[in-house]
């Protein structure tokens, strides 16, 4: 580790814990506390990645995740940012986006063709001939994109969680610490988060060389320790802000959804690069990166550095580098820098300063693997001045310190309005929504004492808002020295043809976007910042423009001749840093409903399927039988003997009270006033447009009490609709939803009565309990409601019992029916049986536009009703000519021949005249059946129509009268043997 500095106070590495790791096939050493980039740098490895488009060698620029120059994969995970990735023993890392490895990347030759690869070249070049576009697209996809997903990666549990606090403080630098402490001292429950592994923010790098600052940090940290109502989460980014102070926190394990009473953003600033020729070479870095290397990781950034600065921060950087035994010189863009204490110290250390100068180009070593010097242009604003080679030869580092942008993503997302403030040459918050506060550098305050004061003010302001602080707030500090940012950190030689301008000057390192690309885009008419972004891809890379957006705005503003405010900014969206998709997925919650008989079904070999939110038996597997055979056998058993199906999924609603009858008459199309107690009626409900939304049976249990069933998938929505109507109409009804609280089963078939009678105290004779009757009694000793229904076309009983007794009753019936040949049947057999009976299923045989006339259900509409939901619309529909009608279709039984599936179209004389809604390829009637919508002029029984199936094959079908099975309902009448 040739570049490792001697131990220093405050360093983050643990020299007692050396680590060994591999990078690009070679073995290196580092320490616990290192990030991958710092460890590589300590080993003298500046080239740590390749650029996206031109595959130029790259090294870290920000060393804090603000650039994407170093992206690696470790075999299991990909697209890990090397400047944030904590070093671990045994890591085996490779740089992404190379072909043949980092050192011998075969795509490095791409740069030679860069002249032919301007922004959007693929749109411009590959659109003709069209037949070749797939080839071009394939090649582009091969060379573009970062990293490869490892499909064999181990599953990692990433459960999301919620957290709550009065005040969320984002950023644990001087302002954030002060704000969190001030708020906690007022009694607020404070959550302080920071993306770094240690508290302190810029105390740890920018101010680390200042003994007085170190003392202040220790005082703040001690106070944090004392406050029990101040929780700290480190290594945690505030990834996004959502409504009502809902903030997504992401750490290396999971995502936390924080609901805060207020938020204080003390997120600081992001240091910005200067734009000049070869500003991307390894060895060109931000001043803050150099300070991080020195103070946090004890790594010597370079041997001979030129600090290119436009503010006093650069002088602090130069002093830090000098203290780390780096040979330093300063190029200051300002002819007359502020006479601060730092300047005095620089003079005292004998550091040479070239004022009023800029760096328009760096010179590179062979293969662009580093820099060997740079040119400076004396006279930053006067092109007539000297353009000279300055410190050539052995300068291997350029450290940029030309300005900052507020790290304001969260604030933008929170709805904060910003304005450009010339006194700091950056955007500052102008208006903040209630409960959102900003402090410190993001707020345009730069002096340490001001930042601490501003943070404290922010914490108190939050406490005041939340009722924990009454006095007047202290005054807001204001930056009153020279602007810390250069207004236009773009440095090119004014003579366009000058050789210095032939070198690439990058605005966005992520996408290899050059200054000339933005100029070209502007010339092509992309003069709006949002359009420019999308055309040029500025700010669209992995780092989302943290180092590029502001420079792009400044360049566009200059090209347009407008102010920064007029130019505006692009929209900030979550997430602040890339978030693994697994973190967003978290633990999966997909609640599924099970009936009380679910486990029995599974034990009996049921094939379970998802029916809406329910799990239901589709059919019961039988050895040696296919799915179709099983279904057909189950259906046949119902027709011949008896079957039992679990219908617990039906909606089970109670409508009670003095207004129950008028309420039902308003909700349903039918009439219920004269419905006797102990009787069932079919109910059909429509929405206001007359479209069918529900059906079921309505059982009158008492004069003022009805028990209503609803479709399995529609019950919840229908109940909400009933609640809505109750409120709107102000009727005296009590609604009760007992859907999940009852088990229900349908015992059907000619043997059903004989099976049930011994189990119940209800007289099941046809006289006492006729078709469409309802009564209450016991079954297997359990209180039950019995409904005589015929949905599947056979004599049968729907039995409703309390859910906890469901299995007991089910098993009792199965046991009692064993000798009679009872079998359970699943949903598919039920669908077949009801289809034979011509009963529609709402949602399958109706769609979002079907009215009762189309569904052949006009009989369910009560005559002369004064009002019901959808009634007025149906009156209008009745005046219109029907365009379709639900009919039955039969198919000649071509054994094994082609048959349509559901939703196939019916074609007549070249026109679509209908579609299949339900299809049974096999029925107990001996031939295939279907329900279908059909044009009314074709619905006469016996009409032949043609259905188009796969491959354009046409299959003939014949219109049949409904129901197919038992048209006279004889199966519901007393049979001679029971009489």
């Amino acid at each position: 580790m040739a570049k490792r500095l001697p131990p220093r106070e405050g360093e983050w590495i643990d020299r007692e814990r050396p680590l060994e790791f591999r990078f690009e096939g070679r073995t290196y050493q580092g320490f616990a506390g290192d990030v991958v980039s710092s460890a590589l740098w300590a080993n003298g490895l500046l080239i740590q990645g390749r650029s996206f488009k031109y595959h130029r060698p790259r090294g870290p620029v920000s060393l804090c995740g603000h650039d994407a120059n170093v992206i690696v994969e470790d075999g299991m995970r990909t697209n890990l940012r090397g400047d944030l990735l904590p070093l671990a023993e045994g890591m085996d890392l490779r740089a992404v986006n190379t072909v043949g490895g980092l050192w011998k990347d075969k795509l490095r030759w791409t740069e030679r063709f860069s002249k032919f690869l301007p922004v959007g070249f693929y749109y411009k070049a590959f659109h003709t001939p069209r037949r070749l576009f797939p080839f071009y697209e394939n090649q582009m996809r091969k060379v573009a994109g970062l990293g490869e997903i490892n499909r064999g990666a181990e599953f990692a549990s990433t459960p999301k969680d919620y957290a709550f606090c009065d005040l969320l403080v984002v950023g644990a630098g001087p302002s954030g610490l002060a704000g969190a402490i001030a708020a906690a001292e007022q009694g607020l429950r404070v959550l302080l988060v920071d993306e770094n592994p240690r508290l302190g923010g810029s105390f740890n790098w920018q101010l680390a060389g200042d003994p007085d600052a170190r003392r202040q940090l220790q005082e703040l940290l001690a106070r944090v320790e004392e406050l029990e109502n101040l929780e700290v989460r480190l290594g945690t980014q505030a990834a996004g802000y959502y409504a009502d102070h809902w903030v997504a926190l992401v750490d290396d394990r999971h995502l936390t959804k924080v609901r805060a009473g207020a938020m204080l953003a003390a997120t600081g600033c992001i240091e910005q690069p200067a734009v000049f020729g070869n500003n991307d070479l390894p060895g060109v870095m931000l001043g803050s990166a150099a300070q991080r290397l020195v103070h946090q990781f004890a790594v010597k950034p370079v041997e001979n550095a030129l600090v290119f600065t436009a503010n006093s921060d650069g002088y602090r950087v130069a002093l830090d580098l000098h203290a780390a035994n780096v040979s330093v010189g300063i190029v200051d863009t300002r002819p007359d820098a502020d006479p601060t204490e730092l300047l005095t110290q620089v003079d005292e250390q004998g550091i040479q300063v070239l004022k009023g100068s800029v760096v328009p180009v760096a010179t590179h070593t062979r293969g662009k693997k580093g820099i060997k010097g740079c040119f400076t242009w004396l006279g930053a604003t006067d092109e007539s001045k000297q353009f000279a080679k300055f410190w050539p030869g052995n300068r291997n580092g350029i450290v940029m310190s030309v300005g900052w942008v507020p790290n304001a993503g969260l604030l933008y997302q929170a709805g904060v309005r910003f304005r450009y403030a010339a006194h700091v040459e950056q955007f500052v918050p102008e208006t903040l929504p209630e409960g959102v506060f900003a402090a410190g550098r993001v707020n345009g305050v730069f002096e340490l004492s001001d930042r601490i004061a501003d943070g404290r003010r922010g914490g108190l302001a939050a406490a005041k808002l939340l009722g924990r602080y009454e006095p007047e707030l202290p005054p807001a500090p204001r930056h009153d020295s020279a602007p810390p940012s250069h207004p236009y950190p773009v440095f090119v030689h004014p003579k366009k043809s000058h050789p210095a301008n032939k070198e690439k000057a990058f605005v966005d390192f992520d996408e290899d976007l050059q200054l000339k690309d933005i100029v070209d885009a502007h010339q092509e008419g992309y003069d709006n910042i949002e359009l420019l972004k999308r055309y040029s891809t500025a700010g669209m890379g992995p780092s989302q423009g943290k180092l590029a957006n502001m420079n792009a705005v400044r360049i566009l503003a200059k090209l347009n001749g407008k102010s920064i405010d007029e130019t505006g900014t692009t929209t900030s969206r979550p997430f602040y840093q890339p978030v693994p998709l697994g973190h967003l997925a978290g633990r999966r919650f997909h609640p599924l409903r099970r009936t009380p008989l679910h486990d029995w079904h599974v034990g009996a070999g049921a094939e379970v399927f998802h029916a809406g939110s329910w799990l239901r038996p589709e059919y019961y597997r039988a050895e040696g039988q296919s799915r179709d055979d099983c279904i057909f056998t189950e259906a046949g058993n119902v027709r011949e003997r008896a079957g039992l199906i679990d219908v617990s999924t039906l909606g089970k609603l109670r409508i009670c009270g003095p207004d129950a009858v008028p309420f039902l008459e308003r909700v349903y199309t039918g009439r219920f006033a004269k419905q006797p107690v102990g009787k069932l009626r079919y109910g059909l409900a429509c929405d206001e447009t007359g479209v069918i939304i529900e059906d079921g049976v309505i059982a009158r249990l008492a004069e003022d009490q009805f028990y209503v069933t609803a479709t399995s998938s529609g019950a919840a929505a229908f109940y909400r609709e009933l609640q809505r109507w109750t409120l709107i109409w102000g009727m005296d009804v009590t609604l009760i939803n007992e859907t999940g609280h009852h088990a229900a089963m349908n015992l059907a078939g000619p043997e059903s009565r004989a099976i049930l009678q011994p189990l119940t105290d209800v007289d099941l004779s046809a006289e006492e309990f006729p078709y469409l009757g309802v009564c209450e009694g016991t079954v297997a000793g359990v209180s039950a409601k019995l409904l005589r229904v015929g949905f599947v076309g056979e004599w049968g009983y729907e039995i409703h019992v309390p859910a906890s007794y469901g299995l007991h009753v089910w098993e009792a019936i199965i046991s009692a029916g064993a000798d009679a040949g009872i079998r359970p049947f699943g949903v598919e057999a039920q669908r077949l049986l009801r289809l034979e009976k011509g009963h529609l299923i709402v949602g399958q045989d109706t769609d979002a536009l079907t009215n009762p006339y189309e569904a052949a259900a006009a009989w369910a509409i009560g005559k002369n009703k004064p009002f019901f939901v959808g009634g007025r619309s149906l009156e209008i529909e009745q005046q219109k000519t029907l365009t379709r009608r639900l009919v039955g279709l039969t198919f000649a039984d071509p054994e094994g021949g082609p048959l349509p599936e559901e939703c196939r179209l019916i074609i007549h004389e070249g026109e679509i005249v209908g579609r299949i809604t339900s299809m049974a390829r096999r029925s107990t009637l001996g031939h295939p059946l279907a329900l279908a919508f059909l044009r009314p002029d074709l619905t006469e029984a016996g009409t032949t129509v043609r259905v188009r199936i796969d491959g354009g094959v046409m299959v003939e079908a014949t219109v049949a009268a409904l129901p197919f099975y038992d048209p006279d309902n004889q199966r519901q009448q007393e049979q001679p043997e029971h009489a």
Partner: protein
Amino acid sequence: MPDSPARRSPVQHQLDELQPEWTTISGMPAALRIGPHDEERAALAGLCDASCLRKLGLKGRDAGAWLAEQGMTVPADIYATASLASGGIIARLGTEEFLLESGIADESVPAIEAVPIPAGRNLFRIERQDATFVLCGIRADAVFAQTCGLDVGKMDVGRVVFTRVAGVSCGILPELFEDRRCYRMWIDPSYAASLWQSLAEICGDLGGGVVGLQCILQSFSGTG
């Protein structure tokens, strides 16, 4: 209703797999102990099935008055609860709606069920077959942190809150058990198995797991 254990918890199948020590409470098999680590699990994050407790719902304008006539202390505020004679609970879920749940040895609910509702009263019995789960332990709040968007740890003891846990609608009643917070949850029985699976997995991740009724029996017997 049959006296034999004809009732069945909606999570009985999940409990069966753990081979617990069974007992019968109110006609339903109830897992008394899951294993030797019940107490340790309960201290961290214990999930217990108490679905055996009988329940009854009442709804209607006269529900509150009628319950008072039966000698019950009727909570005045919506979402407030009161104790039944032998450890059961009465919760006011709305202006006109109540939920009654028996304690372990409490026959309050069957007794009330047996009382005929006089004609002319605006009062309707509701079938309540909710699953009852109890979440206990010092990490119970952490379980909710992964499953519920409300700050459950700050909820008032003795007041019911309706929310969603792991995507399932349920009522949560914070209670004190031996001076520690625990949470009684009422869930639609059709969702119970799904929610149980989620909660049991999270409790396990947090060092706890499924525990038997023995751990919390005192709480439901009216002496806790």
